[in-house]
C-alpha cells in the first residue's frame, strides 16, 4: 500500500493531534488529583485558627507618633514575609509603609490644614476591599477574595501580567521585577520566597491567622493597629468604627476598603 504526500501529512497530523489530546487528558486527570489533595489540606485548619466573617483593621493614628513606631511595625512584616530590599524605588516591593495625609488621601488637599496634621504619617497597606478591582482584573484567579474578606495571593499561579496593579486604586501591589532572594536580609523558611515575575501584597497574615495568631504588624503595633471581625457587633474594630470618627481611602470609588483610619484619637482597650 502506498500513500501520497497529502495523505501522509493528514495522517501524521491526526496522530499528532491525538497524541497532544491524550497527554492533555492524562495531565488533566493528574491535575485533578493534586487539586483534590491540596484542597483537602486547605480545609484542615487548626482548631486554634482565628476566624471571622469580615476581617477589618483600624489604624489608630494617635499611636503612631515617631518613625520608630512605624519601623517596628514594618520590620515585623518584612522579616516574616521575606520581603526584599533592593535599595531603589523602581524595583521596590512593600506590603506596609507610610505616607503623609495629602498623598494617602489624594483629593483631600487642604492648604490650611494644621501643620501637625499635614506631616502626620499614615500607615498604608492593602485595603482588602469588599469589592476588590484587582480580583476582578486578575485573569487567572491568582489573586482572590476569601470568605473572610481577605484578598489573598497565590504566588504560584500568578503569570505576572500586572493587570491587578493597574486596577488597584491604592497602589498596594508590588511586582518582582528581579529575583528577590539575594535581597532578603534573612530568609524565613516558614514563608515562601517569590520567584521573579509575580505580584505580591499584604495578605493580612493569613498564614498566622490559621495558626491562631494576630497579623504580625498588629502584634508589633502596641495597640496602634486593631484587627477584628467587622461583622461581629461586639468586636473591638466594630465598636471603634461605630462610635468614633474614622476615614477610609478613596471611598468614592465604591471598593469598600476594610482599613479604617481613626483620626480623632481614641480611648479604647
Amino acid at each position, binding site marked *: 500500500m502506498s500513500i501520497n504526500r497529502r495523505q501522509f501529512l493528514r495522517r501524521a497530523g491526526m496522530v499528532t493531534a491525538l497524541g497532544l489530546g491524550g497527554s492533555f487528558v492524562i495531565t488533566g486527570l493528574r*491535575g485533578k488529583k493534586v487539586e483534590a489533595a491540596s484542597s483537602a489540606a486547605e480545609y484542615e485548619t487548626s482548631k486554634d485558627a482565628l476566624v471571622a466573617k469580615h476581617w477589618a483593621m483600624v489604624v489608630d493614628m494617635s499611636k503612631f507618633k515617631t518613625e520608630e513606631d512605624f519601623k517596628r511595625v514594618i520590620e515585623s512584616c518584612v522579616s516574616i514575609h521575606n520581603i526584599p530590599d533592593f535599595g531603589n*524605588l*523602581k*524595583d*521596590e*516591593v512593600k506590603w506596609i509603609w507610610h*505616607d503623609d495625609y*495629602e*498623598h*494617602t488621601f*489624594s*483629593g483631600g488637599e487642604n492648604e490650611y490644614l494644621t501643620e501637625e496634621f499635614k506631616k502626620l504619617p499614615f500607615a498604608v497597606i492593602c485595603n482588602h476591599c469588599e469589592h476588590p*478591582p484587582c*480580583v*476582578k*482584573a*486578575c*485573569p*487567572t*484567579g*491568582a489573586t482572590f477574595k476569601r470568605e473572610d474578606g481577605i484578598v489573598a495571593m497565590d504566588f504560584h*499561579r*500568578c*503569570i*505576572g*501580567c*500586572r*493587570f491587578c*496593579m*493597574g*486596577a*488597584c*486604586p*491604592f*497602589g498596594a501591589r*508590588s*511586582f*518582582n*521585577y*528581579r*529575583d528577590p532572594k539575594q535581597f532578603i536580609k534573612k530568609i524565613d523558611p516558614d514563608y515562601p520566597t517569590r*520567584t*521573579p*515575575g*509575580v*505580584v505580591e501584597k499584604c495578605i493580612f497574615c493569613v498564614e498566622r491567622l490559621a495558626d491562631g495568631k494576630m497579623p504580625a504588624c498588629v502584634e508589633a503595633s502596641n495597640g496602634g493597629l486593631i484587627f477584628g471581625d467587622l461583622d461581629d457587633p461586639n468586636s473591638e474594630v466594630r465598636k471603634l468604627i461605630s462610635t468614633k470618627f474614622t476615614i477610609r481611602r*478613596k471611598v468614592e*470609588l*465604591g*471598593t469598600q476598603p476594610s482599613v479604617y483610619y481613626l483620626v480623632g484619637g481614641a480611648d479604647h482597650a
Partner: protein
Amino acid sequence: MLEKALTGGKKYWAWIFFLLTVIAVGLVAYFKQFNYGLGLTGMSRDVSWGLYIAQFTFLVGVAASAVMLVTPYYLHDFKKFGKMVILGEFLAISAVIMCILFIFVDVGQPMRILNVLLYPQLHSVMFYDMCVLVGYLVINFVVGWTTLGSERKGTPPPKWIRFLILLSIPWAFSIHTVTAFLYAGLPGREFWATAIMAARFLASAFAAGPSLLILLVMIVRKVSKFDADPPGVGAIQSLVKIIRYAMIANVFFYICEVFTAFYSSVPGEMAPFKYAFVGLDGHASLVPFMWTATILAFIGIALLVLPTRKNKVLLPIALLSVFFANWIDKGVVLIIAGFVPNSFGRVTEYFPTGNEISIVVGVYAIGMLILTILYKVAISVRVEKDL
C-alpha cells in the same frame, strides 16, 4: 501556497535576512530579560505597564482596521477594494500575532501563561480579550488563505467562507472594544476611565491602520509587478476618505476628553493631560511626543482634506503623519500617562531601556517577516494569474 515565499530575487532575500538579524538581536534581548526579570525594562512599581502593552494596544487597532476594507467589499459589494482586501486581511494576521507576542514578552512568568485557559476567570476583561484576539487571528487566517487558494485555482471560494467573512466584521469591532475595556473599566485611573475610550480606539484604529495599508500598497507597487490599485480604479482615494473621517472623529473625541477634564477642572481628570502636554511637577518627558503627535494629526488631516490628497508626494506624507500621530497617542502616551500621577498623586516617570527597545523592534521585525511572507504568497498568486 507557502512554497511561493521560498523563491525570490536578491532583494527579497536580503530583506528576509535583514529581518532575521533584527529578530535575532531581539531574541537575545528577550533571553536576557527572561533570565533577569522585567527589571531590565524601564517599568516600575508605579508605571507597571510600558512600551510592550502600548504596542499591543496600538496593534490591536491596526488588526481591527482590516474591517474598513472587508465591510465595503463584502457587505456593500464595493468592487474597488477587490485587489486590496487580501492585503488588509494579511496585515491583520501579522498585527494580531505581534499583539500576542507583545503580551507574551510583557508577562513576568511566560511559562505560566496558559493559566489564563486553565483557570478562566469570567470576570476578567483579559480573558475575553484573549478569546477575541485568538478568534480574530483564526478567522482572518482561514478567510485569507481560503479565498486566495480558490483564486489560485480559478474557482469561486466555498460558500461557507461567506459566513466567516461576515462574522469577521463585528469581530473586528469587538477586538478593539474589548481592548479599550481593559483600561476603561479601572476605577481610579482617570485618564483611562472614560466612556468614549472604545470609540476613540476604533476611530484612531480606522485612521492609522488603513494609512499603513496604503503605504504598504505603495511599497508593493514599487517592489513587485502587483498593483492593488491599478490606474483608473481609485481604491486608495476611497480609503483616504475613510482615513480622513476616522482621523477627524479621533481628534474630535480627544478634544471632548480635554474639554471635560479642563472645563470641569477636576484635578484628577486634568493631571494626566497636563503631564502629557505641559509636564507635571517638573516632569515632562512625554511633552515633546504629545506635541509632535498633535502637530502631525493636524498636518495629516489638512493634507487629506485638501486636494493635496491626490499629490503623489504629499499623500504618503499625510499618511505617515496620521500613522505616527496615532502611534504616539496610543503606542506611547496613553499607557504611560495613565499611570501618572500614581495612586498617591506623585509623578514617577518611565523611560524604556535599550534592552526593552530591542525586544520591541524584534517583535515588529517578526511581524514584518510574517507580513512579507504572506504578501509574497498573495502577490505571487495574483501575478501568476495575470500573466
